[in-house]
């Protein structure tokens, strides 16, 4: 599990995002066309790839992709 892998999964999932445009410091909420529906897709994506169900509260405190990875790592440990 690393940040490159997570970026790959996100870019694969969201058609609106240009491949290669995301970085660890990219803000999730500033991604192209971000809406509350995308938050649901992100919950499903993390569950599918990492077997972790993020809470709404956790998602509120996640800003960047790096933050998301750190939350996943923390939950996994």
């Amino acid at each position, binding site marked *: 599990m690393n940040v490159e892998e997570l970026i790959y999964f996100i870019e694969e999932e969201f058609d609106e995002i240009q491949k290669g445009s995301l970085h660890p410091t990219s803000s999730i909420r500033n991604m192209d066309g971000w809406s509350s529906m*995308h938050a649901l*897709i992100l919950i499903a994506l993390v*569950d599918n790839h990492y077997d972790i169900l993020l809470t*709404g509260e956790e998602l509120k405190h996640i800003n960047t992709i790096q933050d998301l990875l750190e939350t996943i790592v923390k939950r996994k440990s």
Partner: protein
Amino acid sequence: MSNFCSDAKFKKKLLKINSINFFLDYFKCSSLRNSFTFAPYIMGPTLKTIEYFLPKKILTNEDLAKEFGKDSQNIFKNTGILKRHIRNKKQIGSDLGFQAAKKLLKKNPNYLSKIDFLIFCSEGLDYKAPTTASVIHYRLGLNQNCGCIDMPMGCAGYVYGLSLAKSMILSNDVSCILFIAADIPSSVIHSEDFNLRSLFGDAGTATIIENSESGKIGNFVFGNDGSGAKNLCVERGSTRAPLDKEYLELHKKQVGNLAHGRMTMNGMEITRFSLEKVPLLLNETLKKNKLTFDEIDLFVFHQASIIILDSLKRKCKIPDSKFYVYLEAVGNTVSCTIPIALFNAEKENRLKRGDVVMLIGFGVGYSWGGTILHY
């Protein structure tokens, strides 16, 4: 699905079991009768036929895109829905259910004299009293020797209603049940709530469950977690939270002032709940029915949203060929999604008599339920 009746030995055995059941029925030994659960072809509660009714008014993605300044293709991508049917101001849940039942009885007039129980499942009842089932019973002109009951359940309602119908038939007290599920979520959605308006549609359905030897309703698994009550809730217009001047003033520009209440949904928590509970429910339902995953011909889940359905399909490793989705033309119709999906799956030849179908309902409450239909 293999043809259970193709084997001569099996037919002989079946004949024997049916003879035993006839004997037990004759002497009203229902508890003994229920212990003969050998095959789906013994006499038992069977889902015989389904009809549904949709109101004429249609809300398209183009309508929503124009109103909210969104992209209609993105709406489809995020919801899996192209259009939703919306009631007119005068239509309520029982009207849609009544129309569905009328359609069913027109096609199958023989049931009119046979129905001896009516179940009405909806979150939009006509009155606090009497039961809406009683009102529909009269409108349909059913026999007076017919019981009526309301079941105010949401997205898991169809599975719960089937369980109730099955149990009543197995008790030998009734033999033919009209189960109407109808919901009008549009009546409790604020006009500015884009997410809910893009997801939900109104509908009415009617199902006949009858004692017969052509199929069987399997064992049920139920669950509930009231801690999620507030995550999908229709507040106000109820005993706990009646309407007041402030509420009516706030919603005075809404159709009917949202006097039936207002729906709120925490989409993230609902998604979380669905992804957590449904895979467990699937496994428990298989276990309770002594079936393996591969023995299921078709999975029909509550049609919540395409995000939830796609995620569940992936998580439960269900192949596309066995996973039925019917969202595009109607949206999430609450308690009506499963019967509408079953109707269309049969119409599209995805479902045929003899198939083994898993039904999974989940939603408001939180509540959830699963069962197997030997269709």
